[in-house]
């Protein structure tokens, strides 16, 4: 027994020694300067490196990057940025919104990142707080509305893409019932549903869109079950505001159609997938990174859309006939050129009340705070 304990004690000492000794930090792609970390201040600190200072960009994600969904789309853009000479990027994924987020952002700030992108609504207050403490770092917050001299808010008019997907779905449905598997009743989701419904009814005035809330962003089992519940009430096209391809699977299994989100989801449901509303963040990120590096960056609220190409629709599935494609692409061009706006009156809500008057175009504020459904949507915004 004694021998055993002595042995274990020895192992402990050896182990402790090894850990203590290991202070070398080999240079890494995402290397952070030890000295910068110890300074407890200092935004873009320069190492003793000569000439090129590495431009460091950090990303904070709310979910795993592999999810083929929201974070995946951002990460694709990040990888594009990584390819630039003189730029290094890093990310932290699955960061819960709240206190942990603030700490992660603070950590990045302390380690001397030049730009930090926070990609979820719930990071808004933590980002603002850290932005106040590190005025030399540029912060970009996605899906929110608060700004600061060194912090911008950005988002994409994905509702425009949703409208187009609605047109496709409206043309392809035979039962005139469309199902929408939605995550949380927040304005961006509600706006997407409304745009989708408007698109559907612009080509098919008798169709209705039924909504089921899953209260989750990524849970394939629940989302698939929600899709099935919509299929059971007669839906023959399933759309989603979810990050997992669960609803796509359900649609394919029943032999009906589906519309994806975030990225091209056709690999998950090749026979069902009509199109998706997708993000192309790299266009925006390239622009913003350039503007910071050349000094022209300004704080503001950026809400780009089809005209810049940061939102788009995925390639059509084989089952979409040519005349539908032409129709949708023509409308896309119209929206991109500004000729047509998605939320143009007259638009009524579920109770029949007029919310956007005839000829009027809804302003951004109204869109950002949207909490009502348009006529033709069956469901509650609770």
């Amino acid at each position, binding site marked *: 027994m004694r021998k055993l304990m002595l042995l274990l004690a020895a192992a402990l000492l050896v182990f402790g020694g090894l850990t203590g000794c290991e202070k070398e930090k080999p240079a890494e792609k995402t290397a952070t300067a030890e000295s910068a970390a110890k300074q407890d201040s200092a935004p873009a600190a320069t190492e003793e490196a000569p000439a090129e200072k590495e431009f460091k960009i950090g990303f904070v994600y709310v979910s795993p990057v592999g999810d*083929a969904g929201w974070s995946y789309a951002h990460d694709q853009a990040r990888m594009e940025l990584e390819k630039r000479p003189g730029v290094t990027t890093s990310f932290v*994924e699955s960061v819960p919104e709240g206190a942990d987020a603030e700490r992660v952002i603070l950590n990045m700030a302390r380690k001397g990142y030049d730009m930090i992108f926070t990609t979820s609504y719930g990071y808004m207050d933590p980002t603002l707080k850290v932005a106040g403490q590190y005025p030399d770092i540029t912060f970009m917050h996605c899906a929110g509305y608060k700004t600061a001299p060194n912090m911008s808010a950005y988002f994409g008019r994905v509702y425009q893409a949703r409208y187009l997907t609605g047109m496709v779905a409206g043309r392809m449905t035979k039962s005139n019932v469309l199902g929408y598997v939605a995550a949380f009743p927040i304005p961006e989701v509600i706006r997407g549903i409304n745009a989708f419904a408007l698109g559907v009814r612009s080509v098919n005035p008798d169709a209705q869109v039924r909504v089921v809330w899953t209260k989750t962003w990524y*849970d*394939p089992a629940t989302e698939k079950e929600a899709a099935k519940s919509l299929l059971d009430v007669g839906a023959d096209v399933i759309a989603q505001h979810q990050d997992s391809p669960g609803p796509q699977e359900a649609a394919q*299994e029943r032999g009906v159609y589906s519309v994806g989100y975030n990225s091209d989801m056709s690999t998950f449901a090749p026979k069902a997938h009509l199109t998706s509303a997708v993000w192309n963040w790299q266009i925006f990120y390239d622009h913003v990174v350039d503007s910071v590096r050349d000094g022209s960056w300004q704080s503001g609220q950026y809400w780009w859309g089809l005209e810049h190409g940061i939102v788009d629709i995925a390639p059509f599935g084989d089952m979409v006939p040519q005349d539908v494609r032409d129709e949708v692409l023509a409308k896309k061009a119209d929206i991109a050129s500004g000729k047509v706006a998605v939320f143009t009156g007259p638009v009524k809500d579920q109770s029949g009340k007029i919310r956007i008057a005839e000829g009027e175009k809804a302003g951004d504020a109204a869109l950002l705070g949207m909490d009502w459904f348009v006529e033709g949507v069956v469901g509650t915004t609770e």
Partner: protein
Amino acid sequence: MYAELVIPVLAATIQAGTPILFATLGEMFTERAGVLNLGVEGMMILGAFFGFLFTHWTGNPWIGVLMAGTAAGMLGLLHGLVCQVFLGSQVVSGLALTILGVGLADYLGTPYVGVITEGFTPFAVPVLSSIPLAGDIFFRHDALVYLSYVMPLLFWFFICRTRAGMALRSAGENPAASAAVGLNPVRLRWMAIFAGGFLVGVGGAYLSLAYTHLWTNNMTAGRGWIAVALVIFAFWRPGRAVLGAYLFGGVMVFQLRLQAMGATLPSSLLLMLPYALTVVVLLVSSLRGGGGNAPAALGVNIEPDE
């Protein structure tokens, strides 16, 4: 329109209840031998991941199921190690197992979120699926569901009608007497832990190979814990386990269907139903003196008596 919903809802209930049924039977098997293993949630999700992984690698979902069960069983053996060899508290060890299992599955599985794999697909059983009503409800599912129909019968037969089953029960009721008649309760418990864990892993694999063909962390979303509760609800008998599992599957399915039909109840409240129901069910069991059916030596480690 709503009358037509009944059959799809019942069919969906069967699917939603299947993973819970496997997990409940697995835990029940372990508990009948006297070992309380609260690590079901951890074993279930580990099974879901390994099942997914091996199916992805080999293209054969049955290999996935086999490996899912093995992985979960092996995690269970860890529990066995801590409790049988090191005589640790079964309660705390189970909790630790849950933390470890969930963490492990999450850690290993993060790169696989968003990957899709071949799995089980539903098929109609010839002849049986043509029975009006029942055929549509019961016989248009995938292979694992059909397996789950057979499991409770096998369980009952093994536990109640075979000598091996009786030996297992003796380890759970009175290990000392069991040893006195020449059986080895410790070894019996080891086997029960592994076999029970295997079933739990299969339940997890169902989620990632049949219910969906995807994997994500937190996929089990508390189903493992519901299984632990259901073992008590079922009075440690397989028949009631079936009832309980489908009841819970039904509640999970029901709240989504209500929404699709246009109901305006807040979904947070609807989501409470499965858990509130567990408490109610246990309440009713307790009022009827349910706790008394537990294997007498459940949760008690067998101490070496030399």
